[in-house]
């Protein structure tokens, strides 16, 4: 008796859980041929996990329902050197993971793989997206279960991961600052050299003009 009540209770809570997981996620609308890109500026050796879920507008029921089987999303990830590091097609619900090997701006682009333009029925596709970077990508419950950590050990582990992320970011910051300094110094050099060169050109042109005109007028017997 108690076991049955317990089971139904667990089931109802599970359903509520599932309902909330469907609902509480940031979403946006994407057109049929539209490509939406997101930029993540990250240090190297950082893991990124992206979860997405799509819903299609059903005209009959006038609400958004999970998309049909054939409709999927094409995910493309480019690294800072514009090299494609992930290019795959996933279903209407997907999860993509990648680890950065060079620090910098990575671009994550999503677009639907729909070839039949009538599939969207003039509406939009609703995409729920969640991108977790670095320390946030860690699944602590899994780590705790795998390494059999107590609560205190898990907390300390989380702190270690956070400090790791801060350290990587600081390293990346140093690399970026160096690039910034190089750009500023290059601008400085360019301004200096071009000013000198332009002054020289000006003086040379002036001298050439006067000499040329003088010889021209002398030839014409006007001077």
């Amino acid at each position: 008796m108690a076991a049955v009540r317990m089971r139904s209770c667990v089931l109802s809570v599970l359903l509520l859980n599932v309902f909330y997981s469907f609902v509480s996620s940031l979403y946006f609308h994407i057109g049929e041929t539209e490509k939406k890109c997101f930029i993540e500026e990250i240090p190297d050796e950082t893991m990124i996990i992206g979860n997405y879920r799509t819903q299609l507008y059903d005209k009959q029921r006038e609400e958004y329902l999970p998309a049909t089987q054939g409709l999927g999303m094409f995910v493309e990830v480019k690294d800072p050197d514009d090299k494609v590091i992930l290019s795959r097609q996933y279903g209407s619900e997907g999860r993509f993971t990648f680890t950065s090997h060079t620090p910098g701006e990575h671009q994550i682009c999503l677009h639907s793989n729909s070839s039949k333009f009538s599939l969207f029925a003039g509406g939009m596709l609703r995409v729920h997206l969640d991108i977790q970077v670095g320390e946030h990508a860690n699944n602590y419950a899994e780590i705790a279960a795998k390494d059999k950590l107590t609560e205190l050990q898990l907390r300390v582990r989380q702190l270690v991961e956070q400090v790791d992320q801060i350290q990587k970011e600081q390293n990346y910051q140093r690399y970026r600052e160096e690039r910034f300094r190089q750009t500023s110094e290059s601008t400085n050099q360019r301004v200096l050299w071009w000013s000198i060169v332009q002054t020289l050109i000006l003086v040379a042109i002036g001298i050439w003009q006067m000499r040329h005109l003088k010889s021209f007028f002398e030839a014409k017997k006007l001077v």
Partner: protein
Amino acid sequence: MCSVMYGSPRVLLQVLWAQLLCGWVLGSELTFELPDNAKQCFYEDIIIGTKCTLEFQVVTGGHYDVDCRLEDPDGTTLYKEMKKQYDSFTFTAAKNGTYKFCFSNEFSTFTHKTVYFDFQVGDDPPLFPNENRVTALTQMESACVSIHEALKSVIDYQTHFRLREAQGRSRAEDLNTRVAFWSIGEAIILLVVSISQVVLLRSFFSDKKTTTTRVGS
């Protein structure tokens, strides 16, 4: 969200209830490109009573400003700012439903912008939901919690610093290319103008000579 399989159903039930009571969290942090004359909206379903924070910053593009608007499920505008570079807005959800926030670059004719936003809903989920939630945290655990909060704010400051640095760097790189192109352009203009001056002067005197000879004969 992950679902952890525990041994006993009692623990599972407590875990689920703990998750439910703590409120579903989502901290979404995204950087996206907003083309000129475009508007991009994001939606999120929020439960009543949740404390939320929306923070945005324009990273690159034009005058580094964007229009932002936040609406509640009934369409009432909770926050509206035009041409802002950076702002942070905290509110408590007064209604259940879908909240919508939009970024608009419709005032710009040809510059596209990169916008970063961070939308925090509720608090972070508990790290290790377990049965002893009712007992107070030990000294070690509360020290860990305070260090965790401090490190979270360090990471937050780092993010803002990174965005400001990206802004500064993009301006510096723009300046560098502009200086290069303008210097070359100016040198060419200088040469062309001076040579055409000489040629024009020569042509004035050549014409006068032919007319005088024709009149003479």
